[in-house]
């Protein structure tokens, strides 16, 4: 009985962790490479979720098809935002530290703008739709099929993305920019373009995560900030700039969340912060950090 319960908690943690991983990988690209601590990250997740809800209820479009709609929208949005706002800030900031501080504050502004436009368009009520809401027997425990679909999609997206990063020329440029963006620029990498692409990819992953979130959890215009904070915690947990670190960190946080929730659901968020604070004190470079 006890073993069965532990198993339930582990599976729930893994299912949650898949989405956390995706969210954190996106922020890892934006903060680890493009040096923007994007407080508006969660807003792209919200956009992905709320757009999926809109196309599902209005046109009956399958959420998995919505991935192909929401991803490009958030990508273009992220790319344009970086090219206009953050490139200007980066070139006008006297030092990287100043850029980090200023871009974080600008991202806060972005967060207020996107969230309130969404509030004006969609209102503040909670929404949700029912997709694949049937029980599946997964390794001996019963779970809603949509969560399983979300986990598998997250894994597939994460792996594809990792392969792009390791195998392609663009991936090499991104990794070089993460190492040292100035030197990468000197080596012939079009740094403004690559950083904007990174930011766009971060938004793309957030949009994907939003689609998956919308299958399993309630959707509302102010849902973003919670996911942003989770993403920040996972990125610090996995180590700044480490994409595999963020991927694995997401599952670790998912497990911790499900363990604490099984004991006291209202303390899950508080537990994340305690973990985050302990981490900053003991090992600020993260598990996979240098």
């Amino acid at each position: 009985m006890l073993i069965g319960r532990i198993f339930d908690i582990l599976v729930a943690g893994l299912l949650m962790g898949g989405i956390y991983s995706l969210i954190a990988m996106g922020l890892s690209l934006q903060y680890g490479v493009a040096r923007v601590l994007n407080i508006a990250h969660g807003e792209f997740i919200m956009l992905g979720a709320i757009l999926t809800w809109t196309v599902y209820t209005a046109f009956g479009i399958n959420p998995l098809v919505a991935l192909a709609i929401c991803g490009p929208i958030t990508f273009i949005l992220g790319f344009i935002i970086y090219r206009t706002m953050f490139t200007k800030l980066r070139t006008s900031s006297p030092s990287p530290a100043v850029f980090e501080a200023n871009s974080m504050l600008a991202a806060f502004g972005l967060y207020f703008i996107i969230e309130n436009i969404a509030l004006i368009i969609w209102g503040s009520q909670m929404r949700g739709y029912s997709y694949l809401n049937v029980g599946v027997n997964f390794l001996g425990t019963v779970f809603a099929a949509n969560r399983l679909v979300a986990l598998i999609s997250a894994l597939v997206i994460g792996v594809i993305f990792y392969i792009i990063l390791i195998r392609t020329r663009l991936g090499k440029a991104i990794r070089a920019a993460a190492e040292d963006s100035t030197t990468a620029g000197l080596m012939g990498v079009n740094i403004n373009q690559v950083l904007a692409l990174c930011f766009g990819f971060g938004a793309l992953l957030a949009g994907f995560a939003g689609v998956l979130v919308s299958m399993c959890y309630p959707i509302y215009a102010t849902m973003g900030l919670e996911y942003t904070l989770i993403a920040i915690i996972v990125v610090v947990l996995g180590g700044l700039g480490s994409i595999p670190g963020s991927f694995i960190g997401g599952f670790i946080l998912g497990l911790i969340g499900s363990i604490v929730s099984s004991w006291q659901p209202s303390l899950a968020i508080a537990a994340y912060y305690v973990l985050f604070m302990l981490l900053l004190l003991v090992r600020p470079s993260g598990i996979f950090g240098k």
Partner: protein
Amino acid sequence: MNMTTFTSKKFLVPWLTSLILLVLLATAPLYISSYNIILVAAIVMYIILTVSWAFFSGPTGYISLATAAFFGVGIYTTAVLGKALPLLAVIAAGGLVSFVLALIVGAITLRLRGIYFAIFTFGLVELIKHVLLFWEITVTGTRGRFVVLVDNITIYYVVFGIFVLLLLTAYLIRRSKFGLAMQSIGDNEEAAAHTGVNVTMVKILTFAVSAFFIGAVGGIMATRWTYVDPYVAFNPLFSFLPVLMAIFGGLGQFYGPIIGAAIFAYLEELLLTKFPYYYMLIFGIILVVVILYLPDGLIGLMQRLRQRWQKGGLTGKHANT
């Protein structure tokens, strides 16, 4: 114009303006209605929050997003102790609890890199909010608390008193050895440490002093609401508004944050009543525009305009802007 009148004028004008403004503020209840006096109190409250924030974050360069945490701690102190102690003691208690909290937080975190400090302090607001919610739901079984009511004039004078105390403290510290140490940390932390400044100590103490004033003003403003719960008390907006107001005014000068907060707080009251739905949207747009185009704030803008005007005057050409 000879040199002596020039310097005396330079020193006299700001002093006289501040004195006149303070006298005007002190006598405000005589000619402002009881409803509007609360509006003035709210503006002074924002000035206190902004000046306290800039007092720590301006010279040291660490962006603190813990303002809402200290503010909320002050609010909750009043909610808990309000009926047991006299008003001034309650407010001092709110300040002291914030002071101690800042000492602890500062001792733990001020070794961190700047950006981590910002995230950590923001997390602190959410952490306290969630722990309080948990506490209220599972231990006391209540949701929120009722606060003792205080009349508007008393609220106004307490806020004004805190403001004067803050100005005095900031002024005295700026002129002291401690203030110089703070300035040197902002210029170059490593060099300051090498010349014998106890960097961590100075940072922690400054952080705690600024938290004291934020907690105290939270303590008095709590009496404006009849009812508080963790969501009302720990509203993250109170962490961002001071940052925005200070940058809006300009961090380079002591009076920059004061001017920024005064203008912005007035705008806020205006926008909130006229466009309640668009208020936060406008707030976000202003934040982005200020960071992109006004890095030195209004003060910097004014100085630039004046320089351009003077240059135009000297060469006999008018700047075509």
